[in-house]
């Protein structure tokens, strides 16, 4: 199991703030693939991925128990 958090616009797309999903092993890229299948349009958005409060690249491994957040970059000012 891993815990997913959706921030800002992504939360509106998924219609939820967080969820827990089954996960045995895989990279961030594989999770993104899952997300895009589950929530069509997911990859049309721009976001960064944090695993356990560290931003990571798509090659990073995600392990059961990890907390993953999708965080859109913020440009306003």
């Amino acid at each position, binding site marked *: 199991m891993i815990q997913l958090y959706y*921030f*800002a*616009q992504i939360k509106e797309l998924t219609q939820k703030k967080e969820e827990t999903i089954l996960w045995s092993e895989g990279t961030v890229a594989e999770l993104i693939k899952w997300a895009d299948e589950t929530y069509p349009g997911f990859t*049309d958005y*721009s976001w*960064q991925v*944090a695993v356990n*409060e*560290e*931003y*990571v*690249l798509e090659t*990073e491994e995600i392990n059961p128990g990890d907390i993953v*957040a999708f*965080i*859109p*970059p*913020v*440009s*306003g*000012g």
Partner: protein
Amino acid sequence: MNDRFIQQKRFQMLGTEGQQRLQEACVTIIGCGALGSAAADILARAGIGTLILVDRDYVEISNLHRQTLYTEQDANEMIPKVEAAKRRINQVNQHVQVKTVFDHADAELIEQFAKRSDIMVDGTDNFETRLIVNDASLKHQIPWIYGACVGSTSVVKSFYSDSSACFRCLLPALPATNDTCATVGVIAPAVYMTAAFQCAEVFKYLCGDKDNMKKKLVWLDVWTNQQHQFGIENMKRSDCPSCGEKRMYPALQRSAQTKYASFCGRDSVQIIPAKGRTLTLDDGENIAKKQRLPSKRTPYFVQIEYGGSRVMIFANGRIHVHGIQDVNEAKSLYHQLFG
């Protein structure tokens, strides 16, 4: 005058020596909108010696809810923001040297500021300018403080070290679209919060307390009470053209920037997005839908009505803004709509 800063000097991390350093410092604030004006207010009051203010816009009535330096009179008279800011700053602290630059902050200007300043504060409203600031900061070895806010969310990160990931590492490609204050709004508490974080970073840097500068990106939503600090060390890319082994500072190259050109006598401006940014017709349609703006789509373009102008996005990413002659107005509109 002698104890004007007494309560700031009493703060032990600053002290008399820190106050002296603030008074000797030159800080550039790029953009004098919401973040820039709150930061300018704090820094001027704190006794920063020289402030360079850069902004291309006029004060408008719709700025006033979140842009602390400006008044209704400034909006009625359409004063350039940098001039209105200077006037107010010198009412709160006559000793600050304020240099105003009423212009679009492009690579050439930003490099000049980087050479002249001790640190740069991000008051911009778009990623493109931030990539320029990032490259100028790395090339000229001075820090900058990224700050951004939208809705009730604040994001802040100090960039001051070659060894850490830079802004381009975090954002190797410009997002085609993202939430902006024009799309999802913004409330003043998020602005003040962001500027407060940014100015504290400026104080720390000028006082020589680099240890306490933010190594993590702060993400805070003042409405939902979420507070996060995200590490960015894993994002360092050795092939980053800004901070990597082979540095090109791509944002400083003239060809990389968004290009604007007004069509003489035709009351319209053409915009070609920055290198690395691709706006599709779908993007244009999504933006119109999100902001509930009237729009229509043909196979060749999407047309959006926005603030009295017609904005046309063509299939090759080129944009025409009709109903505007002034290039600076078109720049503002472009960043309002597309971030």
